[in-house]
């Protein structure tokens, strides 16, 4: 809607007519005061204002409009028949007018101007709306961001605290299991010693008694092994400084320990040359003891175990990493032709006490691979396995050559 302000009614009617012809609706005010009242009440998108009016003149109205936030952006088009001098025109622009037209007016030009200003006003309004929306959006995002930051900080604090608690608990638990394992071993040792004394020196001719005693001996041996493994597991948490370790020597020692079992089972063990790495020798020995021990233990009945221990250097800490003689990681595979396991249990085999096999057929405490995994983790390495039931298993480890 356009507002026409003029104290001469005839002018209003004429202007109104021209606008109407071009489909533009208009309203009218006959004085400056009247105009202000209407502008406060209604929304106009353009004001065509006569300069010379009794009472409040056009300039004064324009100045008043410029002082208010709501009205300052409404374009004002001055129209004057009398004040054609430059100073009036200047004043018109100064008070906030967008144009200053002097009479006689060419109706076509006037309409073009009106349309241009209307369009500008519309665009300006659109821009303003967009700006408002954007600033609102920014506010919302700022708020959300702040909220998020607060939440993250809070979560971080919580996690740090939890972590501290967990570390403490973990330490306590390790202490506990160490003490328990250690103290459990003591009475067990007595049971074993005395029961063996009883068997060897005092029971010779009662087969039933000997059978019972044998079962007792077996059970206590199993328990002893269990406790030894537990002790080993909890001991892994203590801090030991890594040193330069020749895996060839480690494996030689481990294989020597298995001499008896290897011979008994007619096992063939093929060993490639191993690298030197920075590590904890006692733990690495334990690692290979457990892996090779498993391969020997879980062999197929009646078939001689064949174990291949291979090593290669790879570029990255990734099982699929490229082989490279200058790689920083070594990938060692212990492959056997034993009973294997279903790979769906892969996630289970490295968890403590998760023995997959029937205890009567295969002795084991379910700690060996958990220990292996923990050792690998302490060395900042990786361990996985590939296996097929009835075909065999491969345990693959990845160890960094140096420890940071």
């Amino acid at each position: 809607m356009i507002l026409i302000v003029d104290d001469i009614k005839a002018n209003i009617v004429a202007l109104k007519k021209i606008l109407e012809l071009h489909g533009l609706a208009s309203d009218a005010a006959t004085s400056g005061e009247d105009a202000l009242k209407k502008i406060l009440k209604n929304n106009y998108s353009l004001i065509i204002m006569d300069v010379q009016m009794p009472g409040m003149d056009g300039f004064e109205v324009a100045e008043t409009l410029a002082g208010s936030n709501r009205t300052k952006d409404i374009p004002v088009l001055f129209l004057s028949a009398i004040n054609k001098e430059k100073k009036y025109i200047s004043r018109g622009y100064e008070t906030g007018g967008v144009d200053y037209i002097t009479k006689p007016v060419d109706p076509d030009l006037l309409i073009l101007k009106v349309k241009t200003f209307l369009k500008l006003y519309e665009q300006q309004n659109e821009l303003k709306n967009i700006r408002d929306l954007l600033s609102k959006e920014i506010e919302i995002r700022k708020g959300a961001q702040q909220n998020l930051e607060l939440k993250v900080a809070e979560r971080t604090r919580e996690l740090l605290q939890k972590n501290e608690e967990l570390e403490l608990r973990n330490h306590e638990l390790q202490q506990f299991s160490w003490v328990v394992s250690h103290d459990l071993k003591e009475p067990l040792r007595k049971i074993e010693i005395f029961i063996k004394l009883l068997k060897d020196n005092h029971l010779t001719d009662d087969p039933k008694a000997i059978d019972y005693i044998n079962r007792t001996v077996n059970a206590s041996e199993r328990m002893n092994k269990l406790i030894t493994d537990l002790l080993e597991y909890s001991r892994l948490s203590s801090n030991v400084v890594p040193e330069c370790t020749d895996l060839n020597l480690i494996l030689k020692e481990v294989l020597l320990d298995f001499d008896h079992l290897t011979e008994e089972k007619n096992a063939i063990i093929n060993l490639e040359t191993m690298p030197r790495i920075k590590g904890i020798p006692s733990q690495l020995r334990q690692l290979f003891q457990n892996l090779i021990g498993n391969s020997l233990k879980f062999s197929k009945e009646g078939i001689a175990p064949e174990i291949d221990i291979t090593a290669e250097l790879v570029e990255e800490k990734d099982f699929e990493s490229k082989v490279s003689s200058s790689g920083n990681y070594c990938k060692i595979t212990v492959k056997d032709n034993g009973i294997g396991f279903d790979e769906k249990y892969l996630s289970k085999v490295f968890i403590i006490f998760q023995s997959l096999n029937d205890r009567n057929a295969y002795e084991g405490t379910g700690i060996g691979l958990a220990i292996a995994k923990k050792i690998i983790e302490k060395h900042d390495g990786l361990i996985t396995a590939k296996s097929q039931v009835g075909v065999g298993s491969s345990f693959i480890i990845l160890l960094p050559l140096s420890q940071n």
Partner: protein
Amino acid sequence: MTHIIKTILLVDDDHDDQLLFKEALSEADNSIVYHAAFNGIDALEKLNSGEIKIPDLIFLDVNMPKMNGIDCLKELKKADNLKKIPVLMYSTSSFSEYKKECFENGALSYIVKPDDYGQLCGKLKHILNTDLNLITQNSPL
């Protein structure tokens, strides 16, 4: 000159271990005189009061109430009349921290209690046949 062992003192709070030790010792060499004390304090008192004559060899358990083996070892090595007696630490624990401390305080060797009676007899026989002067940390019993 070889150190000939005629008397042995076992310091151990565990009665079962004392019994086993005594029997295994007599099986290894029944001419040896065996004495026992139940902890560090008991051992020092018995040695100082003369209740037990100065033995030729001491087997000293590590974990004991009242006074543990390491403290007892320190006391033994402080006393002029006792410091020359060879001391063998005798423990179920193979924990290396203890071992180090024992050697630092003058123990001759560190023996882990065998899990088997036969082994214990064998171990004692071996010790009795060994010239203790030749024992070092690098060539243990």
